[in-house]
């Protein structure tokens, strides 16, 4: 599913102030060395059950019904509690999760799922196709207002003829259909029927069917999960998962170094500079790097002049040195991209190359578009007005730094740029939803299906929808519509390759880079696949284990 990417978004709250205090205290206590940890974490141990794994999250979920919350904090937790019909395996092929098998009809319009027998909710009640049907009704209900509703609204008819069978029929063949059923978490009808999903106590006290169940949720502190003994897919190895809510990433990092949390996402400087420079950290932390399905971009408001002019957009694309951003901001931990697809996957068109850094070409294009420096101040003008705009971004260190580098490169071709970093929530509500911006630096996290209808189709421009840059290209519209209907993978691939080619040529956004997801996990956690398979590091997290000798003292584990 598509989400706004806002990694490490700094929240402006009491914790920001608190960290100022912590920061000062740290200066004072930095000199005292922590007790030496003499455990040998490299030893191999047989897989065994038990133990607690602790991680940290920057934001607290608003609730654990993820179809309503629509935020990564919520799905990170609820993904351990609720099952879906289908899931992706290690190599990103679909396989059944609740479904034992599924069948697509010859006209490609009907999918029939057969559920595994004897499925149970954590409270002992049976899980049947009626629950799946109820969940579908809930997600498409106008009252639910789910951001993911559009995928499921295309279902014309859904049925549960017997407890083990669930079938859906689409108006027309819909290529992303199976992918969408690997995204919908199935909720228990018997606990939710007749309730308002927005206010139900269930959102804070859920009952699911997956590997874990909610133990305890202390508001503002942590969410504790424990193994669900009646899990339908067998038993996970680790007994307890604790997610501590630590809004400030530097405070999270301190906890990681102190061994009080077991894993966290890192920024490039922590990954490439800080941890490698400290042997005592390398001794207990394992570093993982995987190319995520996300990218950072500079997006133009195409409804504002002069960004409606393709020459101006191309000029800015030529004027930005993307390699410099990858080297300087991501310390080399990023990849130059030319399409909105993860490089190396089938959907990424191998024949496309990013715009090279070429300031002279940029200047020529700007001149062609009517911009000249008439008053000799180094800034270009058109119709007497200087070419000047503001780049908005959220308070994310990497994006702010990228903006500073872009500012410098654009100044060199005669464009005056100002930068403004805004707190995430007000950034979205005040500027993105209202379309009140010239240029943004933002990121997209993408799903596995190549369909990007919601981002690029001209019909998706209403406030709150994802095509907020106002992109309107009839060729792209047509390709996106075709891509959704085409079920032959090779033909579908060609459609998306062509889509990416048109997009690159039109340059409605400047692709800055695809960054690596960087993670540190304490070496006490074993069984992690490295290097990460295509499905990502966490694909087999239920088989991760913590050998008994390496477990932390359970008393201190809260």
């Amino acid at each position, binding site marked *: 599913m598509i989400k706004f990417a806002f990694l490490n978004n700094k929240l402006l709250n009491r914790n920001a102030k608190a960290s100022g205090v912590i920061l000062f205290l740290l200066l004072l206590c930095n000199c005292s060395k922590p007790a030496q940890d003499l455990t040998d974490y490299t030893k191999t141990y047989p897989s065994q059950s038990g133990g607690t794994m602790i991680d940290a999250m920057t934001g607290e979920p608003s609730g654990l019904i993820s179809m309503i919350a629509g935020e990564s904090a919520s799905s990170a937790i609820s993904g351990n509690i609720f099952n879906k019909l289908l899931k992706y395996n290690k190599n990103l092929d679909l396989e059944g999760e609740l479904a034992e098998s599924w069948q697509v009809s010859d006209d490609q319009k009907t999918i029939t799922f057969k559920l595994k027998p004897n499925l149970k909710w954590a409270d002992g009640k049976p899980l049947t196709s009626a629950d799946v049907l109820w969940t579908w009704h809930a997600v498409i209900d106008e009252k639910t207002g789910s951001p993911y509703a559009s995928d499921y609204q295309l279902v014309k008819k859904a049925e549960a003829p017997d407890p083990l069978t669930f079938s859906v029929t689409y108006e027309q063949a819909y290529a992303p259909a199976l992918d969408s059923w690997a995204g919908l978490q199935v909720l228990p009808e018997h606990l939710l029927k007749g309730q308002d999903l927005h206010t139900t106590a269930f959102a804070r006290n859920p009952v699911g069917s997956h590997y874990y169940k909610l133990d305890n949720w202390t508001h503002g502190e942590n969410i504790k999960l424990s193994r669900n003994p009646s899990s339908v897919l067998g038993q996970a190895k680790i007994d307890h998962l604790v997610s501590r809510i630590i809004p400030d990433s*530097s405070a999270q990092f301190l906890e990681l170094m102190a061994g009080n949390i077991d894993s966290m996402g890192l920024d490039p400087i922590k990954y490439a*500079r800080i941890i490698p420079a400290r042997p005592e950290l390398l001794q207990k932390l394992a570093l993982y790097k995987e190319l995520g399905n996300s990218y950072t971009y500079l997006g133009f408001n195409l409804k504002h002049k002069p960004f409606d002019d393709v020459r101006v957009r191309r000029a800015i694309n030529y004027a930005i040195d993307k390699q410099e951003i990858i080297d300087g901001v991501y310390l080399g931990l990023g990849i130059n991209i030319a399409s909105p697809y993860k490089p190396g996957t089938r959907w990424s068109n191998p024949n496309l190359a990013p715009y090279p850094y070429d300031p002279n070409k940029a200047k020529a294009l700007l001149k062609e578009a009517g911009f000249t420096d008439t008053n000799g101040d180094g800034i270009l003008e058109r119709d007497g007005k200087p070419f000047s705009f503001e780049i908005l971004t959220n308070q994310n260190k990497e994006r*702010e730094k990228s903006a500073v580098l872009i500012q410098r490169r654009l100044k060199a071709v005669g464009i005056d740029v100002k930068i403004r*970093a805004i707190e995430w929530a007000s950034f979205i509500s005040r500027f993105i939803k209202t379309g009140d911006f010239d240029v943004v630096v933002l990121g997209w996290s993408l799903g596995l299906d190549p369909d990007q209808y919601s981002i690029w189709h001209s019909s998706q421009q209403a406030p709150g929808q994802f095509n907020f840059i106002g992109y309107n290209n009839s060729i792209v519209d047509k390709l996106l519509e075709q891509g959704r209907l085409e079920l032959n993978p090779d033909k579908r691939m060609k459609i998306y390759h062509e889509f990416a080619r048109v997009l690159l040529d039109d340059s409605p956004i400047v692709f800055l880079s695809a960054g690596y997801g960087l993670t540190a996990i304490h070496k006490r956690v074993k069984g992690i696949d490295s290097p990460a398979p295509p499905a990502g590091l966490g694909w087999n997290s239920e088989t991760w284990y913590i050998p008994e000798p390496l477990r932390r003292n359970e008393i201190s584990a809260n």
Partner: protein
Amino acid sequence: MMTKSVFKKALKNPLSKAGFIIIIGVFLLAMFAPIISPYDPDDINVKAILLSPSWQHWMGTDGLGRDVLARMLFGGRISLLVGLVAVGISTAIGILLGAIAGYYRGWIDTVIMRLVDVMLSIPSFFLILAVIAFLTPSIINVMIVIGLTSWMGVTRLVRAEFLSLTEREFVQASRTLGAKDARLIFTHLLPNSLTPIIVSSVLGVAGAVLMESGLSFLGLGVQAPQASWGNILTDGKDYIQFAWWLSLFPGLAILITVLGYNLLGEGFRDALDPRSENK
């Protein structure tokens, strides 16, 4: 004149002398930043990211390879400018309202003093946060907002001075001779209440420098890439265990500057205090 003697007396105190020297020093460094500074503060060098202090970069480099010393010097200009302008605004408002309240008394005095009470009852840092959140964060807005939210002390001070001065013989005499309000206020009352105003302004600058640093630290003050001590400190926050120089130097600069203003202000205050006359 009274002010001059107070100044002399204040500087006899070694602590306030130290404060004075610190402030002069900081001012000179900021003023001559373009000459002293070894690098351009906005000179990015992606090959020299987060270098620790060395002969080449005395205070190291930041996350974009910019020289921290250069950014500190230019950031100092911002911090001092914000301090002075903000206090200028608050002092001007404070004098105006205090003079009106203290000279005319009556209902207008009541209105102004209740307004002061209301303003004082709102925690000023959160008031400023709220106001800045509505405006675009920029150095000019920060100066204005700090100025507009910190005039209450001066108002009270000026009013109190005026209340007591209007009863003094030379004022009464002048009034009997037919002097107009404006003449009384500007030639008699104001010059004689200048000393406490200066004291409170000096202390006010310290507060404003801190406030600006705090706002910039939270990302609501001076915006990147322009340097200010507060936002250099924010840059360093994430890497404090590794790139200590990014937190230490701006932290020290803020500490020393605020200390300087406070020492000087305290010195003035002591010198003014009649009970410390014989010291």
